[in-house]
């Protein structure tokens, strides 16, 4: 945890550290099965193009997402995380996304407190019918993370690429 935080503080405090050429961020997308995952499938069936940086993990509900997952992602592989669920009021599991929303707010504050830029973790509501919206969300998140630069400068392959 300390190592991650230090690393992040470096990238905030010394913005002159520029990303290696051809650097592409890795973004983990954790999507709920009933709305956002179905929405991302619709983006595919509609052939709407978006940046290829996101890697999608399917969970039953956004309320399944443990803050641990977000911390672990940033600690190990990801430069940013997107969590997406059903629109408030539309949760397949009645109220799961409300729990998720509150939990994310707190997690965001915590990560911010230890030195992560708040754009590293982002949340959105994408319904099963919002294919174009999902593409837009991914494009925006990717752009935001690109601006922030690599989180894992120590990763050897980032320099090799």
């Amino acid at each position, binding site marked *: 945890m300390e190592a991650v935080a230090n690393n992040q503080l470096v990238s905030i405090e010394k913005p002159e550290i520029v990303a290696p050429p051809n650097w592409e961020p890795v973004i983990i997308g954790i999507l709920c099965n009933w709305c956002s995952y179905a929405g991302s499938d619709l983006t595919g069936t509609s052939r709407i193009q978006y940046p290829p940086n996101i*890697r999608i*993990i*399917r969970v*039953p509900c956004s309320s399944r997402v443990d803050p641990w997952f977000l911390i672990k992602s940033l600690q190990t592989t990801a430069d940013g995380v997107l969590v997406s669920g059903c629109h408030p009021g539309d949760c397949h599991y009645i109220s799961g996304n409300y*729990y998720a929303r509150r939990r994310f707010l707190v997690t965001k504050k915590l990560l911010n407190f230890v030195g992560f830029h708040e754009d590293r973790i982002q949340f959105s509501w994408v319904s099963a019918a919002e294919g174009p919206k999902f593409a837009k969300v991914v494009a925006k998140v990717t752009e935001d993370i690109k601006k922030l630069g690599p989180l894992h400068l120590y990763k050897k392959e980032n320099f090799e690429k």
Partner: protein
Amino acid sequence: MARVGVFVCFCGANIADFVDVPKVVEEAKRIREVKFAIDYKYMCSDPGQQQIRDAITQYRLTSIVVAACSPRMHEKTFRKALSDAGMNPYLLEVANIREHSSWVHQKDKKAATEKASDLVRMAVAKSIANEQLHEISVPVTKRALVIGGGIAGIQAALDIADARIPVVLVEKSPSIGGKMAQLDETFPTLDCSQCILTPKMVDVASHPYIELIPYAEVLELEGFVGNYKAKIRKKASYVNFKTCTGCGTCWQKCPVKVPNEYNMGIDKRKAIYTPFPQAVPNKPVIDAAHCTMLTKGKCGICAKVCEKGSIDYKMQDEIIEREIGAVVVATGYDLWDPKPYEEYGVGRFKDIITSLEFERMVSANGPTNGVPVRPSDGKVPKNVVFIKCIGSRDEAKGIEYCSKICCMYTTKHTILLHHKVHDSHAYVFYMDIRAAGKGYEEFVKKAQVDTAATYLRGRVSKIYKKGDKLIVRGEDAQIGQVVEVVADLVVLATAVIPPKDNPDLARLLGVSYDKYGYMSEAHPKLRPVETAKAGIFLAGCTQAPKDIPDTVAQASACAAKVCGIFSGDTMKKDPMISTVNNEYCTGCQNCVKVCPYGAIVTEEVPMGHGSKEMRTVAKINEGVCQGCGSCVAVCRSMAISLAGFTDLQIINEIVSI
């Protein structure tokens, strides 16, 4: 050591054109745990599945990754392939390299290929942590609850009961029959509504498998499919149905007159009443809001005249509990109040009535003996103007949708008017004539010829009074001019709306509803009678406006679905649910608070180490748990685990990218 097999699909050209499939296979082979990897043109085809089955035995594989389309598409197909090969089907993981890679990164094959390899690696990592899971079987209570005793509820109840499954039919009003009992004749065949409905009502009352609870409402429904518990409040009728013979002396002698709901308030009923002569059950109830004995303690005539002594002014509401396996909701519809149409003088002019009021008037058992009359002076009208789409398709004043039935019943009304008043003339203001249905267009065409009604395409902008006539001013869009029609009677085809308490009932049942208050089906095309909540089905207008044929068809479909649930003594359920590890559970009960289904309760277990002390731990009712995982995320001691989405599985995915 895990032995994973990876199967990468071309999906014809869908994947192969934008992802370098052989490269993905090659990358997969570099993963230590992958013992076998292959690509194929169509993995979902039978030869494709055969490759999976063969490889499972040949390479002694412990989990399978199929890289193909979305798991929402073919997960079931591949799971079946696994179990056919004797492997636990839940050892499968699907890497979605079509919807999430080849279709969305068509301009960058290199990146798409890299992403596909990553997705495969993630799936492999997850599959290593997959556990063998088994479908859960839940016992089933074979009894259905039907809410609403209109034609939808009647049909559903009869169909289910005919399959020898007990049915509890709960009806809000004192009699079953619903709106259909108020209709005179029905389109497009002009069958007498009473003649086709009342035999069914009698069947309900006499069916050995139907328990009819009239004058009652559902208060609570808890549990889950196959195992619901319903609490029903039977309103006090103040009449002992067991001894009452339905002789009618009480309502003949009752001095209190109340507007008659059955006849749309055109005439009056008594405070002790049966809604209509053919009511089922044909026993009276006392309207507690109007009976002077119950409100002021004065009168008591009905008790005096009742020879059987069936009147009981002290009767209380009764709570009935029933164990239920499935529910059919058939609460029907209401009609929109046209008051916002102030420019028509609704509420000021007595000779503007709604379609259902007209229906009651032309009804043989109606308050005017089947002859339409003007409410203002009781004269028989000659010129009658029918205006369609009152409230329907009107975003400004009413609702956006089409009520579906008004075009047809207005056509029927022109015919009925023509039959009852031979020298009358009907004018119909319409926006469109929507006559889609078997025999509907023919019905409209024939009615237009037979009745010689004047059809005017356009909206009415104003109605005003001149003498004792109403002047209806509207546009005839086909000649592009404003026209004025001198009318004796104006009939408004008001919109169909859901019953006012539909959202309350939906919340009580845990079913979602739309912005108008109609309950929502699980899928608009492919699951039109199911709700998103397992074991609750929708029949008739509670879901959307419908005519009688559609309602009856949907009710029968509900019955088929209910019989399907009851076809075995137990039901199969997805095993992706939470489990508690008692060793870790501290009994904090955070999980109990967040569970949206109330599936988590507590239990006492021994402290351990030979101690006699007990401690509290969480316990999950596997029949109720739907597998959302809310409890897992709030569990501080990591005691709860969600099968199929364990912490280990997800962390494996995260770290393997």
